[in-house]
């Protein structure tokens, strides 16, 4: 093989690598991206059964129901709409009513969402309730704290 030919081969190889990377990326952005909705954005007539999506919102107060030690029912709400969710497994430590959560899974029928993953938000700016009151009283309250 001449030197020139070898170099040409190398450049071609590089192009092939780049091309296949681009194709991989394009294919996977279509297949492996899940859309994120809030409960009110979900249109009941548009639901695709078994398509994996994420829903973010708050765990509705008084909606949490422990069916057994490992299966749970609760509602995710954004105060305009709410969605009934079932989940089997272990809930995250920060999961509780009134707190933010993101669930990943799919609708099993028009009304029930089966979550495969539940994420609860954690943040360094949390605040114990008693001190929160103190701060509010003294007017030293930063809107950042929830």
């Amino acid at each position, binding site marked *: 093989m001449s030197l020139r030919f070898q170099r040409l081969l190398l450049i071609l190889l590089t192009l092939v690598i780049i091309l296949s990377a681009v194709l*991989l990326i394009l294919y996977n952005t279509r297949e492996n991206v899940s*859309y994120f909705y809030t409960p009110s954005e979900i249109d009941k007539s548009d639901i695709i059964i078994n398509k994996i999506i994420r829903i973010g919102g708050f765990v509705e107060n008084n909606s949490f129901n*422990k069916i057994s030690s490992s299966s749970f029912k609760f509602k995710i709400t954004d105060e305009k709409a709410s969605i009934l969710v079932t989940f089997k497994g272990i809930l995250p430590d920060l999961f509780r009513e009134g707190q933010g959560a993101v669930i990943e899974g799919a609708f099993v029928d028009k009304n029930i969402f089966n979550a495969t993953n539940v994420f609860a938000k*954690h943040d360094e700016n949390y605040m114990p309730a008693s001190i929160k009151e103190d701060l509010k009283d003294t007017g030293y309250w930063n809107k950042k704290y929830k």
Partner: protein
Amino acid sequence: MSSLVGFLSLVFAIGINFYLFLSRYIFKFQKQKFNLFIRFSSLLTLLSFFSLMYAYVVSDFSNYNVFQNSHSNKPLIYKISGTWGNHEGSMLLWLCILSIFSFFFSFTKNIEDNFQKLTLIIQAFLHILFGLFIVFTSNPFLVNSILVNEGLGLNPILQDPGLAVHPPILYAGYVGYSIVFSIAIAGLFQNTDDEWIYVAKKWSLISWTFLTGGIALGSYWAYYELGWGGWWFWDPVENISLMPWIAGLALVHSLMMVRGEQAIKKWIVFLSILCFSLSVFGTFLVRSGILTSVHSFAADASRGIFILLIFFIVTGFGFLVFLLKEPKKSNALNLLFINKVSALVINNILMIIATLTILLGTIYPIIIEVLYNKRISVGGPYFNSTVIPIMIPGFLLMSIAPILSWQTNKINNSKKYVLAFFILSVLVILQSFFLDFNTWGFVGLLLGFWIILASIIAIFSSYKIKINIKFFKIINPHVAHIGVGIAIIGITCSSVFQNELDFNLNEGDKFNVNGKTVLFEKIETTNEINFQSLRGKFLFDIEKNQSKEIEAGKNYYPVSKMITSEAGILHQWNKDIYFILGDQKNNEWFVKVLINPFVSFIWLGVIIMIYSGLIAVSRR
């Protein structure tokens, strides 16, 4: 009081750096005096950092930052590490490490004075940028305007020994690239000979080794801390650390290989700028809260904009200099179809594509949200099915690259390699035939074992075996690659062949895990210093006399009214048995048991990589 000392020394240090920065244009300095000033500003920054730490240790709640993130009944280790367990403190740590790097760089011998000076001036410039960022948007020395005698406490999730080591080491990796950046820019400006390349090699190896250690520690922390998704989750925060790591790996390889070629020199400068840009970009993404992440940290738009500004200044300046100036003197690139140089070129192309793929997947959600106002999330499957296939040719190349020749196409002993590869393939095929077959498992195992085997053949057939330091230095590249091979085996086995078992148990129940009987002994609650603990106690393998006890449970932190889960892990050399205590109903507890084969190989592989990083740094 300590806050005042801290703030003043912080500002004073920035002032000195400003003075040094101007010294390039206005005041001329002697080298000695210049270096003394640099060291003095480093010590001031350290003083500032230790003042903050002191405020944390003595629980000085007149400091607003301490009040927000500390509590007097915390154990001492979390008071100390709590210093960087929040945004402001962690940025001060960042600055502190930056100045420590300048400090050590000022002691470098055998380099030209003007070159060293210019590098340190660029460091001073970076110090000013990040220092002003701290003073104006994230000052950790603000005074608390209300009188309190108790703080709000540190987020319980962060109350873990991981917090003490993971952030400082990771930051040492990120910030270490600042000095590589400065060296590259100074090298362009001064247009010295190839001197700067040898200096850059040492510092980029140091940064890369720290970054490897930092990522591994974070990964290990995530692994035993529940709910963070195992040792790797393709979470944005994790991706951000992986990008400079891969780019840094490309940089280290290029630096090892460069023999005066113009094209590679240019490429090295490009990579040096890229590594630091990615580090700053990562800081911006994490700190601005633009990305939704499970490790979501506090978000504040003003900080984000400031860091974005710094990012544009650093990157813009860096790449502008890169475009305008060129390294002088050149040898042409000696590319053949398969020699060392072309292997290096392919390796670098693959690494950069991998970095870009990760970058794209990480910021894709932001792009889509801006363009279409739709929110999406790009998760593990995307990265697994793009990054891994892109890396596979690189892994294949890695097994033979160190023994390729510089000048010719020939590979010595090529028959041995072909034979070894053939035998290995048969073995792996047999293994996957008798155990459960999985495509990824097959590819991963074959690659991992092949890299190890090829490296061992290379060591034994190319060098005389001697047990002395020089020998270990010569075989170092092979050792590093063996580390990668071991890590690949660990990663493949633990992710592909993981086994998950669910149980509903009452106290006293026996159950079966992997052929061994496990007893769910009891649930125990105790009071610790600043939390209450609830532990399920398990006895593993009760038929044997030496059964192992495993504890899994939860901690309740009354100060912040939060619960954290603590997994119980039984480490064995070939598998980890991972116990998670779930919820209970009517005294029946949910217990999840994960069997993760060969996880220990991941950590072993990483330790080997860190070891060879250290050996390479020590090399002259």
